[in-house]
């Protein structure tokens, strides 16, 4: 083991001190006293330096140094170096913190940091502008005491999904989108965005589609009426017979598209949650199955494994079931089969349409519920669909807190299953026992 030179010199100095004390003591004849005196001197010397070291560590700047070389000088130099390093680091962090503060302050989106009790820990300038928070008084207050929308409070307790849109507390017709992101241990970041423009654009779009559909419907009714009269009356020249029939078919298709568009805009603009009327699903599925059974094409089979009823809006549920069956029948060639299953799955209930049709490629599954999305443009138009059926299903199902799952294998067939949550399902056996 090699000692650093500063230690070696210190030990050498101590050795020299003791040795000279010993020699002098021996010379004057009181070696013990001389040795003790020298040791005491050394202890005092060391204690004094320790005292200054302690002061230096306490943060005193000016520490007198008695030596310019040797152990203590080096120790002090190193302490000073460490302190300088810490000072620099602190300065750096301060600068960094200030920069972060400034940049988050300049963001146009509001940010609020919340702790596990929903108390506000910090927020930026945009948040105080958007929500009317006050930097001086509102830190430490619970956010749901200041932002009291019942929807927001419910979301705050269970922040799931894409966030929530609430009316602006400061602007009469403003809208804010709030999303809460949990991070760290028990911390949450709430991001607030002004979505007034998006909301307005969305509304304009919806109003336009709704108005356009309504306006187009009346002239179309007139055209369809005359076409029908032409088709039924026998006095159409032979050459025009086929074109008139085709025009009639296309006019019908246009009517269906308009009807679906109106239905879709109605679903979008209605309240987020559908009513809770009692709907007899069994009674609803039977006529739907019968309607498709008679036609040429695949066989339609209805399997009622439960007699559960749903709490929802009758017309929308009918639209969900009808569109799914219609969709399956159209994409299943004659000779194939379409099976409709209504079954219980634990507390919830599931409606399933299993077909042996052409199937959907996996990468296209997420897109089939978009409006006017065509898996295979040529084929689906020929089959007479409007391109809106599944979009309607998705929206109507959302309003019933339901979930649509699609599984499919190309060439083998697809399964569309709608799961309704237990709050929406009434099992008859329960109903009977409740009455008894």
């Amino acid at each position, binding site marked *: 083991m090699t000692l650093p030179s500063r230690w070696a010199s210190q030990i050498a100095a101590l050795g020299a001190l003791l040795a000279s004390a010993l020699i002098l003591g021996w010379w004057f004849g009181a070696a013990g006293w001389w040795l003790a005196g020298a040791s005491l001197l050394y202890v005092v010397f060391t204690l004094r330096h320790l005292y200054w070291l302690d002061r230096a560590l306490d943060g005193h700047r000016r520490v007198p140094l008695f030596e310019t070389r040797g152990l203590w000088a080096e120790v002090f130099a190193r302490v000073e170096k460490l302190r300088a390093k810490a000072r620099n680091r602190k300065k750096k962090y301060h600068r960094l913190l200030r920069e972060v503060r400034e940049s988050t302050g300049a963001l146009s989106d509001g940010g609020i940091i919340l702790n596990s009790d929903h108390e506000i820990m910090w927020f930026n300038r945009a948040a105080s502008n958007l929500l009317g928070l006050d930097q001086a008084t509102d830190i430490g207050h*619970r956010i749901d*005491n*200041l932002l009291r929308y019942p929807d927001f409070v419910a979301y705050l307790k269970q922040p799931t999904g894409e966030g929530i849109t609430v009316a602006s507390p400061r602007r009469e017709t403003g809208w804010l989108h709030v999303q809460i992101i949990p991070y760290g241990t028990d911390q949450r970041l709430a991001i607030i965005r002004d979505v007034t423009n998006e909301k307005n654009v969305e509304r304009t779009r919806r109003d336009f589609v709704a108005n356009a559909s309504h306006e187009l419907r009346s002239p179309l009714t007139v055209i369809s009426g005359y076409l029908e009269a032409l088709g039924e009356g026998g006095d159409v020249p032979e050459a025009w017979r086929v074109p008139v029939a085709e025009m009639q078919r296309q006019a019908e298709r246009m009517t269906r598209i308009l009807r679906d568009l109106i239905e879709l805009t109605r679903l979008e603009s209605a309240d987020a949650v559908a009513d809770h009327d009692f709907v007899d699903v069994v009674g609803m599925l039977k006529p739907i199955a019968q309607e498709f059974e008679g036609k040429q094409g695949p066989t339609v089979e209805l399997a009622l494994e439960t007699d559960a009823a749903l709490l929802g809006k009758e017309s929308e549920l009918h639209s969900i079931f009808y569109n799914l069956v219609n969709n399956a029948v159209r994409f299943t060639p004659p000779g194939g089969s379409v099976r409709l299953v209504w079954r219980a799955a634990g507390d919830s209930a599931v409606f399933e349409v299993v077909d042996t049709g052409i199937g959907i490629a996996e990468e296209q599954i997420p897109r089939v519920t978009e409006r006017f999305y065509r898996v295979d443009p040529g084929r689906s138009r020929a089959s007479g669909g409007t391109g809106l059926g599944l979009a309607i299903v998705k929206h109507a199902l959302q309003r019933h807190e339901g979930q649509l799952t699609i599984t499919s294998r190309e060439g083998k067939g697809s399964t569309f299953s709608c799961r309704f949550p237990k709050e929406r399902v009434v099992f008859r056996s329960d109903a009977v026992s409740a009455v008894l």
Partner: protein
Amino acid sequence: MEVEDLGHHISRRFNEDLERVRNMVLSMGGLVEEQLERAIKALSEGNSQLGLQVAEDDVKVNRMEVSIDEECSRILATRAPTAGDLRLVIAIIKTITDLERIGDEAEKIGVLAARLATVERPSTNYRELRNLARHVKQMVHGALNAFARLDTKGALDVVKADNAVDEEYESIYRQSITFMMEDPRTITRILDMTWMARALERIGDHAKNICEYVIFMVHGKDVRHIGVENIEAEVEQGARRLESRT
């Protein structure tokens, strides 16, 4: 009572109880605000279904009032609060009564809006009513904010705003009389409008009451029926006292 006092208690459970019941009041306030908002929306959009829905949802407000009331009784019985805590509980008991009344008035507005939606609308689409409603809504919002922040200055602003609302109500009232004399066929509709203005004016009064409880809770001074100037003096005096103490 200072704002910080809420956080300094020997019994942590007591603290949590007080804090919880305060939060319940504010979420009840949020519900009432939403009811009012929807009732007014029903009027301005002529949406009778929404109006009736508001009337139906009033039971939620009532249910919350009952449960907060029970919670307060429980705190009074088991914790025997004193001083600032007692004032807090008393203020809460009074506040929820006023909130519940605001809910009732919102219910009335909802029913009236549903009825007005079925008759012909004036060309102004009830502009003066919507204006009054906007002011009243701001008062309720301000009152609840003052309650949440224990902010007596904010409370004072709301108390001051009540005079403007009363004047607005007065002018709608006079206008209604003129309309009814001009064209007796509109009497039914105008009467409904007047009732609605009356309900809004009452909501303003309830919001003012809540603010008075906030001042009572923070400064320990009962400021009912003493006039705006005196309330202002009390608030300033109370604020000075708080400042000198810290």
